[in-house]
């Protein structure tokens, strides 16, 4: 019935591949960068890969609204950060974009568009195609997303095999490559290990490898580096920046660490009690905040953060 989902499956996917192949040439990336936007067609503004328009999320059981309208637009290669305390609706908003709102929550208003297609009324089968290949996510608690009784490499290879139709052997090889790309020191060894044999930081990198395995256009990183050691976090931030530049990956970054958001994002949303209290460029929001809640978050960050003892001069 819906021709758009058919398009998602066939036409768009093909177009995507063509686009990505084009992006691989350094010229195209360079042109996009000088144009001040992600890789896009030379004429007009780049079309968004993800667009949330006044998304409202309600609790069906309680009959009340929890998220009171979030709007954001992600173009290829761009990054939007969402900050705010837990319970502010950050994670629900991300889950709405992924179509995985847990019961009894549901989108009660507004729209979510992935690659120009409204996700309302998408069949589960279409979602399966979309997730991983077009939009994927990494959450904070990596252990709960992996199967404890299957070797890590096999779990990644499974994603590669299903999403990209590669042979078993090619998928295994690709799994090791992906583990190397997330800066795991001994990817062959890690690939043959079970989740319980890995530290939290290693598991988180495995999850990131899974998330980027099928070459998504949008990655939602919900506190993805929070549990990592600071040097590993630096590697992951570099990796995400590389992917943005190289493949035009667009990011939604949810983090309690304002410095991580400042580092990665072009635009920032500040949420509180389900409301976006401030939204704008990262520079404006983090360095010239207007809302008192944003000011409070920044003051707390500076009081209980490295900024307490580090001045820009010393860093220079």
């Amino acid at each position, binding site marked *: 019935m819906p021709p758009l989902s058919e398009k998602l499956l066939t036409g768009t996917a093909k177009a995507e591949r063509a686009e990505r192949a084009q992006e691989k040439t350094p010229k195209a990336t360079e042109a996009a960068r000088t144009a001040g936007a992600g890789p896009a067609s030379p004429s007009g503004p780049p079309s968004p890969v993800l667009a949330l328009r006044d998304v409202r999320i309600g609790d069906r059981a309680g009959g009340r609204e929890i998220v009171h309208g979030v709007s954001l637009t992600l173009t290829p290669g761009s990054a939007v950060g969402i900050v705010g*305390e837990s319970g502010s609706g950050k994670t629900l908003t991300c889950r709405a974009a992924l179509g995985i709102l847990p019961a009894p929550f549901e989108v009660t208003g507004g729209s979510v568009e992935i690659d120009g297609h409204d996700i309302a009324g998408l069949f589960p089968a279409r979602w399966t195609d979309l997730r991983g290949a077009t939009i994927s996510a990494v959450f904070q608690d990596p252990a709960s997303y992996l199967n404890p009784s299957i070797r890590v490499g096999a779990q990644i290879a499974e994603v590669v095999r299903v999403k990209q139709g590669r042979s078993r052997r090619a998928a295994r090889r690709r799994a090791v490559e992906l583990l190397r790309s997330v800066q795991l020191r001994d990817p062959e060894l890690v690939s043959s290990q079970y989740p319980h044999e890995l530290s939290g930081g290693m598991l988180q990198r495995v999850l990131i490898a899974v998330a980027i395995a099928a070459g998504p256009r949008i990655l939602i990183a919900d506190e993805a580096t929070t*549990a990592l*050691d600071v040097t590993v*976090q630096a590697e992951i931030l570099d990796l995400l920046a590389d992917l943005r530049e190289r493949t035009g990956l667009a990011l939604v970054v949810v983090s309690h660490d304002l410095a991580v958001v400042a580092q990665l994002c072009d635009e920032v949303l500040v949420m509180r009690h389900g409301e976006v209290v401030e939204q704008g460029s990262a520079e404006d929001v983090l360095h010239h905040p207007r809302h008192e809640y944003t000011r409070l978050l920044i003051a707390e960050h500076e009081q*209980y*953060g490295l*900024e307490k*003892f*580090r001045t820009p001069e*010393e860093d220079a």
Partner: protein
Amino acid sequence: MSNDTAGFGPAPETTGSEPATRPVLEVRGLEVRYGPRRRRRHALRGVSLSVAPGETVGIIGETGSGKSTLARAVLGLVRASAGSVVLDGEDVTAHGGRQWRALRRRGVVQYVFQDPLRSLDPDLTVEASLGEPLLVRGVSRAETARRVRAFLARVHLTEDLLGRLPGELSGGQRQRVAVARALVTEPRLVILDEPVSALDAANRVQILRILEELRDDGVSLVFISHDLGSVAGIADRIAVLYRGELVETGAAREVIGRPRHPYTRLLVRSAPTLRSAPADRAERAALRALLPA
């Protein structure tokens, strides 16, 4: 194993010093080894550290640096293969279970872990959990009830939570209950191993504020974390662990603002701040190249 390794490092100086300035914790030449005899490795090597009354010492380092082993060795949960641990003037290095229980009853040291479910009994209500250590020590029921409420207030929780089980609390509330439980016996030293790492920004700041209030009350804290920002926010002094050895110890301002050891520089420069990007790959590789192999 031979006995003479027990005397490794300088002798403890607990005898001559004034009780008022005597360190609450004095770790000397601490060594912890693990693994089978053939492939025995050091988890900690030659670690010396002292914590003064009312002082907050932060310990930073990465996964596998020995941070948690240090906490566990201080608490008697792993055995030192050399060196000594002196808590409030008492050498606890060779203490057995009974001596440790006596020490805990005296309220010298308490601990808080990252996961409050590990320090709280899932079947005990908040009131029972907080009251248990007091009742064990023979405090009357009336006095226990009074103190439980006082400490609940101290961690900014309300009395309506007293009847709840840990599973019925939010993560932030649970960690505050764990802190309150560590406090009811009024210990002189609290060891906190990644106490805010599982919390969101608001709860993280709330716990850090509570810890600051504790410090102002004269409680000594050892704050272990991979999160440099939290440690910078709360510690008077910071010790940096790298592969089981302390590579730098100093005032928080110095260690964060002007790190001397390449490993400390690598850690500090790897973290972004609101105003500055972290060191790029080349700079990090250059710092890494300076580290002992």
